[in-house]
């Protein structure tokens, strides 16, 4: 079931100037309830512009955004509904922390929604758990936390609005491999427990392969690929042409394939790669 859909969305920054970067040129896409969608594309491909349309921060020049089958720009109430229904977490969200305690900061969204004290408290407790921090953190100042912890608190501040769709712009930027994997696990389990839709932008194809059900590839303001992870990653050479990185393992298989070895090219994890190569090697023995 589609919860959020984008229809023929067009948008240009500073029209007519050479700064027309990150424009959208007629994007249509549906997001279904409960799925995790990875969005990839290089800087200036329009992915940030797309994200800011999803919760009504930017108004389309033409085309429409439907949230639960309602055009989000049809009335003031529907924009507001979409703001809270589609939670957008910007890149480096820890830079937006401002309250004196972690509790207050996570409560900022629910407060703006006009919820009751008890409901706010309940949501804060729930959110801090989702991001893998204990309740001890709630009375600390957000500015005393480590970088990774700040990031989690900031994400909790969006989750606390209980959005049906959670949109994250490069949630793992700047984290080390462990921090990165932990955060991706949290996103995955949040998605499983709440059955909410998660849309996340990443430069890292390995991250996308790890948790996404579906992948969107943006290039020059258009969606050029839209499919499951194996579907998109099997087009490794096309991705490379678009100036995107492909997972390291895929690159190995592309290299082997190019060199004339009969191996598949839709491989993107080490374990799968090992299996495919063993298969190939055994076949070689049989033929030889």
């Amino acid at each position, binding site marked *: 079931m589609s919860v959020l859909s984008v229809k023929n969305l067009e948008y240009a920054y500073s029209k007519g100037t050479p700064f027309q970067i990150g424009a959208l040129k007629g994007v249509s896409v549906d997001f279904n309830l409960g799925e995790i969608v990875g969005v990839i594309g290089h800087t200036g491909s329009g992915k940030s512009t797309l994200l800011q349309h999803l919760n009504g921060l930017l108004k389309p020049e033409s085309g429409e955004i439907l949230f639960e089958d309602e055009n989000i720009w049809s009335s003031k109430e529907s924009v507001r509904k979409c703001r809270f229904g589609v939670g957008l977490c910007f890149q480096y969200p820890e830079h937006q922390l401002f309250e004196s305690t972690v509790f207050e900061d996570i409560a900022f969204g629910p407060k703006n929604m006009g919820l009751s004290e008890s409901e706010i408290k309940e949501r804060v407790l729930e959110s801090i758990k989702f991001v893998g921090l204990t309740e001890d953190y709630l009375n600390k100042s957000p500015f005393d936390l480590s970088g990774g912890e700040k990031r989690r608190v900031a994400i909790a501040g969006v989750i606390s609005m209980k959005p049906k769709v959670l949109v994250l712009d490069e949630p793992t*930027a700047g984290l080390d*491999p462990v921090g990165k994997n932990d955060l991706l696990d949290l996103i995955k389990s949040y998605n499983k427990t709440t059955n909410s839709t998660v849309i996340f932008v990443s430069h890292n194809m390995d991250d996308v392969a790890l948790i996404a059900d579906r992948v969107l590839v943006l290039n020059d303001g258009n969606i050029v690929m839209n499919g499951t992870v194996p579907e998109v990653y099997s087009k490794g050479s096309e991705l490379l042409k678009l100036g995107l990185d492909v997972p390291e393992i895929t690159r190995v298989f592309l290299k082997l394939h190019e*060199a004339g070895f009969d191996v598949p090219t839709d491989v993107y994890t080490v374990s799968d790669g090992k299996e495919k190569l063993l298969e190939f090697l055994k076949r070689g023995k049989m033929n030889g």
Partner: protein
Amino acid sequence: MEKIIEFKNVSFKYSDEEFDVINDLTIDFYEGQFTCVLGHNGSGKSTMAKLINAINYPTSGKVTSFGFDTSNEENEIRIRQNVGMVFQNPDNQIVATIVEDDVAFGPENLGVPPEEIRKRVDEALKIVDMYDYRLHEPHKLSGGQKQRVAIAGAIAMQTKCIVLDEPTAMLDPKGRKEVMSALMRLKSELGMTIILVTHFMDEAVNADRVVVMNDGVVQFDGTPSEVFSHTEDLKKIGLSVPKPLELALELKKEGYDLGTKILTEDAFLEAFRSLI
């Protein structure tokens, strides 16, 4: 090779923290080497970088850069003339409103004559491939371009060594590639000593030497293929290894030995060919 930076039993503690970030560290860096320092966030790798050019002073022990004790304040300028530094956030290290003026900032501070500055600035910008942007405003550049301007700023000071503290952490893949190829040119064309602090494994692949930091001490130190052969240990301290190597090691378990020097996909192809 000549020893240019020397850490002797160095410990370091931030005044507002309880524990040592750097713990009795003894390590040397050599002239002309490209060393990559790896470690997870909080492993002490950035702190170590800042000890090299006297932004941090050791709480105990001694750091010597180009023969100068970093704890002696009088040596500060002489050390920084030899060791340039590039930081993580590209926005917060560019001073001037025009690219070439920013590159000129260091030499100007050193009192270099104007004609000489002009020459150095042009050369530095050419090496990092930013010469065409010399009259641009920094805030209109991409992250990768800004970092290359910062690198040019160090080159123009004619430092012998450049320390980069996670210069690619905030960049997209394209920016990361630009910065890495600029660094490779510094090494091949200028023979500069490079110390790159990072948590991206793939950046360590082309280094001469890889140092892995954990909890303020050196855990591994050797060539990339030596260090990365400790796959399991590296994973335990929160680092990954290049995927081609991981795949090769998995195949080795099944009886297909591709060797341990498989750091890139090209190396993998080579080894795979000779296996068959």
